């Protein structure tokens, strides 16, 4: 057991914080929100130069060869800085899926372009029916079909809540190519050029102010060569990337939560009302104390999940725990920070609090909310073995013993 970050991780953290404080200030975030691209091309170029876009790609694809724990360190800073942009879409759901399942050709063509900041990918999974809830992130929810047509496939249907669709060069479309008893069997991933005929994109207005879209695929033709992974076998690699994505959302919430805690404690200590710092009130202290709890709980559950992924160990339980806790904890953390700040966080334009709060809603919902991941946890628990039975002879000591208040040894004890 070792809870230390490596020196490299510490360096990444520090340099990311410094860079983002400078380059990703509140104004930029608000400008991106007000704009229609969902990201800042300028900032995107800068982080490409820093090597962040290729952070987890192997060096042969112009990456830095770092792992998912390192990525989580970066994401913590993304969360703190509310970094806007298609990183999760492009690098994780796009790039890491291609890295996992793509052909050598796909990898060597696309990954370096992603790393250089020259290609943006958006993953299109969720659909109108599935967006209501539990099936959004499960293969059951995928009904948009891709039908073979010679060397091509024709994709037809609507994908909803597609992040970063407007700025994407390429869609990674999750489509159904076969139906059967196992819903995961029959899902195929297609790389679709965003400029293909038949694609139309409508941004949705979300409370987070991020860039989620409706993408209509109207008989869009895509070459068989653009399949990522096996025909009908797309779910497994996608699921793997989505798990990484979920953990990165946790890291993002962790970073945001840390900042909210700092802001709240600072405000509690310095804001004067009734001639006293408001932090003198236990009602205010309580918010800070529980903020601490919510943030602390998020930290190691996030890094444990990241570590499990990095080690290639089974991680379903850990990812679900991290995202289930992280999402709820972040919701509470935002609320508590608002309560500490009273009217200050109540304004729309002034201060970062409402921004954190609104962004938080996307982090919570994206790739599965608390209810979704709690059900995943319950599924894991179903598989737990029965408790171990000791090997000693049965003694009959614990059968039908009534629940008395006073232990029997008391009767024989010398009570003076």
């Amino acid at each position, binding site marked *: 057991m070792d809870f230390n970050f490596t020196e490299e991780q510490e360096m990444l953290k520090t340099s990311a914080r410094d860079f983002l404080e400078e380059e990703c200030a509140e104004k930029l975030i608000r400008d991106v929100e007000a704009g229609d691209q969902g990201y800042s091309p300028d900032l995107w170029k800068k982080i490409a130069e820093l090597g962040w876009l290729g952070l987890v790609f192997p060096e042969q694809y112009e990456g830095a060869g770092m792992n998912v724990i390192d990525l989580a360190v970066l994401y913590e800073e993304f969360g703190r800085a509310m970094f806007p942009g298609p990183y999760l879409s492009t690098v994780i759901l796009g790039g890491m899926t291609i890295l996992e399942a793509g052909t050598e050709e796909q990898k060597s063509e696309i990954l370096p372009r992603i790393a250089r900041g020259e290609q943006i990918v958006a993953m299109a999974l969720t659909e109108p029916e599935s967006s209501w809830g539990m099936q959004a992130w499960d293969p059951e929810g995928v009904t948009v079909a891709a039908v073979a047509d010679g060397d091509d496939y024709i994709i037809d249907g609507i994908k909803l809540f597609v992040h970063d669709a407007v700025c994407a060069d390429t869609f990674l479309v999750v489509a159904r190519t076969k139906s059967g008893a196992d819903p995961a069997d029959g899902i195929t991933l297609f790389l679709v050029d965003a400029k293909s005929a038949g694609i139309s994109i409508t941004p949705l207005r979300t409370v987070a102010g991020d860039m989620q879209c409706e993408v209509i695929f109207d008989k869009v033709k895509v070459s068989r060569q653009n399949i990522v992974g096996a025909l009908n076998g797309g779910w497994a690699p996608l699921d793997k990337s989505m798990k990484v994505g979920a953990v990165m959302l946790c890291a993002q919430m962790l970073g945001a939560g840390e900042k909210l805690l700092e802001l709240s404690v600072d405000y509690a200590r310095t804001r004067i009302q009734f001639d006293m710092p408001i932090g003198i009130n236990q009602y205010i202290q309580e918010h800070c104390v529980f903020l601490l709890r919510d943030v602390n709980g998020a930290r190691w559950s996030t890094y444990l999940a990241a570590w499990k992924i990095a080690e290639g160990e089974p991680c379903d339980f850990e990812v679900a725990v991290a995202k289930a806790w992280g999402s709820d904890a972040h919701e509470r953390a935002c609320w508590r920070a608002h309560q500490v700040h009273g*009217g200050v*966080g109540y304004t*729309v334009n*002034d201060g970062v609090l409402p921004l954190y709060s609104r962004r938080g809603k996307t982090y919570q919902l994206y790739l599965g909310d608390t209810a979704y991941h709690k059900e995943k946890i319950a599924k894991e628990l179903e598989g737990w073995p029965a408790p171990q039975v000791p090997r000693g002879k049965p003694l009959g000591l614990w059968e039908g013993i009534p629940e008395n208040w006073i232990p029997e040894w008391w009767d024989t004890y010398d009570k003076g």
Partner: protein
Amino acid sequence: MDFRFTEEQEKLRTEIDDFFLDNLPSDYRPRGQRGQTMEQYKFWMDLQRKAGAKGYLTPGWSKESGGLGLSDMEQGVVMEETSYWGAAWPGSQGIRVCGPPLHVFGTEEQKSKFLPGIAKGEDIWYQAFTEPDAGSDEANVSLRAVEDGDNYILNGQKTFITAPGQGDYLYTLARTQDVTPKHRGISLFLIDAHSPGVSYSALPTLGVFTVDIFFDNVKVPKDRLLGELNRGFYHAMVTFEFERSTTGGGAGARRGMEELIDFYRNEKPNGKPLLENPAVRDLLADRAIEMELVWLQGWFAAWHFSQRDKLGSPPPEAGGLHNKVVSADRAKQLIDAMGLYGQLRRGSKYCKYEGRAAGSWEVSRSTHPAGTIEVNKIVLGGRGLGLPRIPAKFNKEIRAAIEERG
């Protein structure tokens, strides 16, 4: 004990209900000053004038003041129906907040000048109390009013002033004396909203639309002082009493329930009405319970108030606090039960239930209007239950000790 309304009250209820049924368009949606269009605003101003002409805005006020002279309980009925229909009166603050103390402390001249405009729905008042350093600590007013011949000259700032429409008058607390305790040097002024030197800037919040108001050598005639000089804080307390009591909450919640149930009944993802979803049923039941309790406690308060000569001041009541505390939970339940659709704002493609899930979630982030949860709890524990608290006289000394310690 009797939970029935009198026949007259039921008749009055029908009358008010008919007023709204006749005057509201069939495609009416009862919500939202936020993001109001000009057409919506004009619609409400027109309807407000119509209601004012009938005395429905201020049913408890005397006929001379533009009211109907109704009893407390009947006022409650009018308020209840008005809330049911979610009438977004731009003049609400004049009606509910400024009017009552004007009745109590105003001169005859002030009353005849100001009350009819409120009652008829012509004038819009802002209650301009909050300042950057006088939020929960309402007595820490630093907007300064200095005597100057027949006028007071005001300098300073108000903030977070709810602006439900184009304001005509400001109902304002200003400091007229430097004194300890601080609340003994504050006075109330009735100010023309467009007096020279008054200026405004937008301060939109997650909830209602609010503004900053700046006072730069604003001249206010002495006859615009309300009540006694330096007694404004105490007069204003009367305002708070009124602001915090209502029979409308339950009815407003009822209309919201009806609409929500209707939405859940008709929205059928995968062919199954959302109304069958256990999380939805849980949310609805929670809201129904709270609606019922708000309704009961609102009427208990109104009834108690109507018997105030006999019963004195009402027992402490924490229902409002409870509802504030659970509002975040309810908003979360609502948005959670909508999956990814929950995050869509009104006006977005695919937005469900008019984006109210996202809207109410966002508003629930902050529960400070009419006092934060924390201040509510402090007031209830102290004044309500008589629990001990640290006398304010120690505050300065304690603060010094804390600062010394670092």
